[in-house]
């Protein structure tokens, strides 16, 4: 059984300089209350690993606007002009990663694999500086695994075991980053009694989740 924290208490756990994997795709499925609490607390020099940086005023965009992020590993920052401006100004270091490679690198980190062998990026700028291996006569990039100090999850339902279920396109990176954070904090839309979520609907087993955020009213 896990207790449920207020978002502010979760933000207290996150030190300056921490690396955060954050779920969501253009802020859909992003844990907004945790993000608001991080902004409120003013945690600095964060590394954010996520699909994108959303747009100003939404999800990860709030962290960017508040100047709390020093490094971004993402597949797309095109819809957040602030991220691009800060990257060009040298305030944020951006590593841009093909989306399918990014999610597999996170999965590899979370599942104890040594990396990802992918054809994506071969012969492009993405290849630069990377190891290439040949398997059965074909060449593949070796992409390194990714882990983070914290994974911040947006979920639909949780129970007090920590099991999580997601809705529709709000799955995205969430079930994968839950494997790769040293500490996993989930912000569900609702917390239901144990036994309410059918075992076959659980996408993140509770054993992966360290803390739940309680619904604040």
């Amino acid at each position: 059984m896990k207790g449920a924290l207020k978002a502010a208490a979760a933000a207290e756990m996150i030190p300056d300089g921490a690396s955060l994997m954050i779920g969501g795709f253009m802020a859909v499925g992003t844990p907004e209350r945790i993000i608001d609490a991080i902004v409120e607390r003013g945690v600095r020099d964060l590394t954010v690993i996520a699909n994108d940086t959303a747009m100003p005023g939404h999800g990860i965009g709030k962290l960017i606007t508040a100047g709390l992020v020093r490094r971004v590993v993402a597949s797309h920052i095109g819809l957040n002009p602030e991220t691009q401006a800060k990257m060009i100004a040298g305030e944020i270091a951006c590593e841009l990663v093909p989306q399918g490679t990014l999610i597999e690198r996170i999965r590899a980190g979370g599942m104890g694999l040594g990396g990802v062998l992918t054809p994506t990026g071969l012969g492009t700028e993405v290849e630069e500086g990377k190891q290439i291996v040949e398997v059965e006569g074909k060449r593949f990039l070796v992409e390194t695994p990714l882990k983070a100090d914290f994974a911040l999850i947006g979920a639909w339902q949780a129970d007090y075991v920590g099991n999580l279920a997601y809705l529709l396109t709000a799955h995205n990176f969430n079930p994968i980053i839950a494997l790769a954070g040293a500490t996993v904090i989930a912000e569900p839309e609702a917390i239901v009694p144990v036994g309410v979520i059918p075992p076959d609907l659980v996408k993140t087993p509770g054993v992966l989740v360290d803390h739940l955020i309680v619904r604040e009213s």
Partner: protein
Amino acid sequence: MDAKELIARRVAREIRPGMLVNLGIGLPSMVANYVPATLGVFFQAENGVIGLGARPPEGMQDPHLTDAGGGFVSAVPGAASIDSAMSFGLIRGGHLDMTVLGGLQVNQAGQLANWKVPGKMVPGMGGAMDLVTGAARVVVAMQHEVKGQSKIVRACGLPLTSLRRVDLVVTDLAVIAPTEAGLELRERAPGVSVADILAATEAELIVPADVPEMVLAP
């Protein structure tokens, strides 16, 4: 009919019954408007759904159901939710029957550049590199020229998206099929001559004796 609608209507005719298709943001997304529901085509949004449906009526949007551009969509009966690892597994593994993407340049070898203009536009490649590398069929939908400059070039000045040769390029002037032999001119847009196309194209085109006019989806 404006150039974008013409391109979308022509691309729509590439789609076969039962296909799984991914449409990029912008022009490519217009293709869905010209694919009849009776074809039983499933559209994938790489952010997490197979069975993408039309924009819902006002008041019926669900914040958990969006497309890759972040816009509200609906889901058709028989839709499936997928996480990002499954989504790109389908793409990289060739289970995606067709992807339609916008382009900045296509070179003589049929390779696409569409993700970066160094010093100007560095949005990140998103899913484009996986889509072009992995999809069973890659269709580029773009205007033939930009500011009087051909986008079909001998060599891409812009960074490549993938080494993979795309399967078809549909522009407002022509349909071009990259093949091992080179870029084959296959069709002309209505009212456009082969000479017009050659004049607007920097790359070398293979021109067969007969270049029919495009047939557009209704």
